[in-house]
């Protein structure tokens, strides 16, 4: 069997392309309109799984649970990047190719555009009768006069309007004047600007992801935190972000105001804070959901809130083993909140742990207690306790909101049932077996603040605005070519019966083209005077 020649198989007799020819062929394919189109369609298609399947960056827990519960199928999707679509190799490949295509397409077009701008307007076609848009009118004062007027009219909009060229040429019977005008450079400029701005957006986004950091701090009313990595609950930064860039300001949460309607819908969240930047006076201000606080080098957003009950645990030796505010995570709109209290530092004996549920407005729905409203109208805390080893010494960082029960056993009543109590604020309960006591002192709120800096934002905004402007010109600026032709008469008498013929080329959707052609013809032939002359 003859070996199939990989290159130029489409055209059997074509000369072999060779490596360079081959590369050039690939490049031409990549930068063709058709490939750009297919890549765009692929980009849309490839995004869709990102909205259907759980994604690691958006919801790590859901993605892990998905893999867990779907066996080999889940593992396959995980391995092939479907659970992190927008970071996957194939998604990246599509947009990298698309932008390679874009750049490869745009650079030559800019060069062509530049040359066209300085080149002469193309000559008038020999025959005008093959164009769909045509008209003619008698010019009573001769061709030269008509063409002068038309030229002045067309040029009145300056460099972004019509480019005009008038020439004399031979016609079938004698000489004629021919005017050629184009009005398409603005549209092309807009199109180029749009595509270049898309590249700008991509660069800004890329640079931003390298230079950004994002952190979250949970602050209880009356407490504060300092802008440093150790003080954050979570912290992520781009590869080029340097922790030393964090400005060491301090933010304290003086109070947190909420307002809920009677039905429990949130109306307003306001964090009253004091910001102390190094070397300046403390500043009292507010942070609200849509109103982040601008600080040097970033913004602080109010991202969440909840209750942080202050609890005190006394151990079997009568010593205070734990005392402090513990943020409880709200689980629903009525702020049913769960929290975990870990007490590693007991004087003697085993470590203690507690799992608690806070019901801000507890009501009995017949079977269990539930919360009916997010305000503290009838607060109740449901508490269970554990003893054993909290597992804090293993060296693996632990989630503060989860109790690792693997080496713990639940506290039990004297009659061996699992110990579980309902507390009200200010109440103290004794733990079974003389292990100590648990007191619920107060119920302040906490606020979760996100801190973020992204130096690329201004550039991104500029690129986006340029894209929008470019797009508008690209779509709405006209793409028209106009021609006028009239015979040059030898004597004044013949001039009086000169007929100017006009033709125009414009896309089908351009509904205003015919009108403009007629207007130019009218101005040229004196049926109406140019707008300029009217003024």
């Amino acid at each position, binding site marked *: 069997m003859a070996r199939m020649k990989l290159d130029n198989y489409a055209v059997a007799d074509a000369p072999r392309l060779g490596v360079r020819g081959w590369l050039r062929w690939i490049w031409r394919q990549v930068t063709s*309109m*058709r490939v*750009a*189109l297919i890549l*765009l*369609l692929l*980009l*849309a298609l490839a*995004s*869709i799984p*990102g*909205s*259907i399947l759980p*994604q690691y*960056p*958006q919801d790590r827990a859901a993605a892990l649970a998905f893999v867990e519960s779907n066996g080999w199928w889940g593992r396959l999707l995980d391995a092939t990047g479907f659970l992190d*679509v*927008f970071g996957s190799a194939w998604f990246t490949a599509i947009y990298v190719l698309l932008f390679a295509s874009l750049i490869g397409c745009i650079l030559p077009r800019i060069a062509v555009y530049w040359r066209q701008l300085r080149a002469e307007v193309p000559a008038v076609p020999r025959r005008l009768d093959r164009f769909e848009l045509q008209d003619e009118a008698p010019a009573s004062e001769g061709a030269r006069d008509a063409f002068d007027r038309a030229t002045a009219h067309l040029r009145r909009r300056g460099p972004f309007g019509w480019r005009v060229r008038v020439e004399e040429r031979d016609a079938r019977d004698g000489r004629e004047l021919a005017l050629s005008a184009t009005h398409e450079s603005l549209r092309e400029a807009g199109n180029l600007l749009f595509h270049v701005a898309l590249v700008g957006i991509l660069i800004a*986004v890329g640079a931003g992801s390298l230079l950004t950091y*994002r952190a979250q701090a949970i602050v209880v009313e009356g407490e504060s935190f300092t802008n440093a990595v150790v003080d954050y609950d979570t912290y992520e930064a781009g590869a080029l972000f340097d922790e030393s860039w964090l400005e060491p300001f301090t933010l304290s949460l003086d109070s947190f105001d909420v307002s809920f*309607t009677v039905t429990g*819908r*949130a*109306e*307003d*969240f306001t964090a009253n804070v004091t910001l102390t930047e190094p070397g300046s006076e403390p500043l009292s201000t507010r942070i*609200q*959901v*849509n*109103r*982040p606080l601008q600080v040097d080098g970033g*913004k602080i*957003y109010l*991202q969440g809130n909840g209750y942080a009950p202050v609890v005190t645990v006394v151990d079997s030796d009568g010593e205070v083993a734990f005392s402090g505010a513990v943020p409880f995570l709200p689980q629903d709109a009525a702020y049913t909140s769960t929290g975990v209290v870990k007490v590693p530092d007991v004087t003697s004996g085993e470590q203690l742990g507690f799992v608690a549920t806070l019901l801000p407005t507890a009501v009995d729905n017949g079977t269990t207690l539930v919360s009916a409203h997010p305000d503290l109208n009838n607060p109740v805390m449901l508490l269970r306790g554990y003893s054993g080893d909290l597992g804090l010494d293993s060296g693996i960082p632990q989630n503060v909101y989860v109790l690792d029960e693997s080496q713990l056993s639940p506290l039990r009543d004297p009659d061996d049932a699992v110990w579980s109590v309902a507390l009200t604020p200010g109440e103290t309960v004794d733990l079974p077996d003389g292990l100590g006591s648990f007191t619920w002192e107060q119920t302040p709120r906490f606020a979760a603040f*996100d801190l*973020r800096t992204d130096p690329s*934002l201004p550039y*991104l*905004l500029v690129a*986006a605005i340029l*894209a*929008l402007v470019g*797009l*508008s010109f690209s*779509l*709405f600026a006209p793409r028209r070519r106009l021609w006028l032709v009239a015979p040059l008469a030898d004597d004044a008498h013949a001039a009086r019966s000169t007929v100017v013929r006009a033709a125009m080329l414009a*896309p*089908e*959707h351009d*509904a205003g083209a015919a009108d403009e052609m007629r207007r130019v013809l009218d101005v040229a032939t004196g049926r109406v005077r140019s707008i300029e002359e009217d003024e």
Partner: protein
Amino acid sequence: MTPQSLSLVTLWAATSLYAIAMVAWAIRLSRIADERVQAREAVVAEPATVAAGMTIPAPASGMGAGPVVLTEDDLPRRSAADRALGTARTAMIIGLLLHAVGLVTRGIDSGHVPWSNMYEYTITGSFVAVAVFAIVQARRDVSYLGAGVTGFATIALGIALTTLYSVSTGLQPALQSFWLVIHVSIAIISTGIFIVAFIATVLQLWQHARDEGQREVTGGGITRLRHRVHNAVAGWAEGAKWMAAVPKAMKLEALAFRLNAVGFVLWTFTVMAGAVWAEHAWGRYWGWDPKEVWSFVIWVLYAAYLHARTTQGWRGPRSAWVSVWAFVALIMNFTVVNLFFQGLHTYAGS
């Protein structure tokens, strides 16, 4: 009457008026088609046939191009098409006014702009679609779109009032922003424009099918199925005589493009404004939340459509299909994504 009940009453009234307008637009279309067909036949017909029948063809430049039926008083009657046009226009404009009252009273009732949940999007979006059509119609005759647009609005309003309805509430803190007004209103306006463009595109595809006629069913599997579907559509379009009153595919393509272009610029703005808002509210401008993913998909598909229009081998029906998929994604974003996908935008569903 409270603003709430006034809003409901006016919206129901608008729904009924749109239904009437839809029927009238449809009648107008088929009457024009009749008149065209008859006018064409009249040109070929021998004058002798006039004596035999009761109908004489009107002169081409007479009181209207339609045939004139001889009645007792022998006056040429206003053409049926014109009467239907009058009804359609009146019903639509009054419907539009009542619709506007319904929106304003809803806004008064809830204390904020009426576009913060699905019910409100739907009533506002359908208003924009009809308004866009009315504006285009005022400038040139596009009455062949009338039945589609008012029909769409009737269905959308009906669904909104019967199943999506929710009592007005205040706004969640995350929505209390001037960006709600900007971002969502532009989104709704572009949606309204895309709806009208979509209807023009559907007509365009029918015209293509009609022009092409029946295909030979060849190939296997999907190709075969595609030919079958095409033949069904073509057969149907050939049978629908009102299609004679619909402009040529090229004209419809041009109209759809103009609308889609405006819609696309506004959608681009919507996505950008959404990113600015997300940056304010959530501290990141883009997070691939399901709603954001779909807004992106819609944007990319419409961009692909604009590309396809100028790509060799993709002109005509092929690029039209890309815009159909883009429109499907738009509707998906509004329905499926709102209702079933979890994300920061989920409050939109409530």
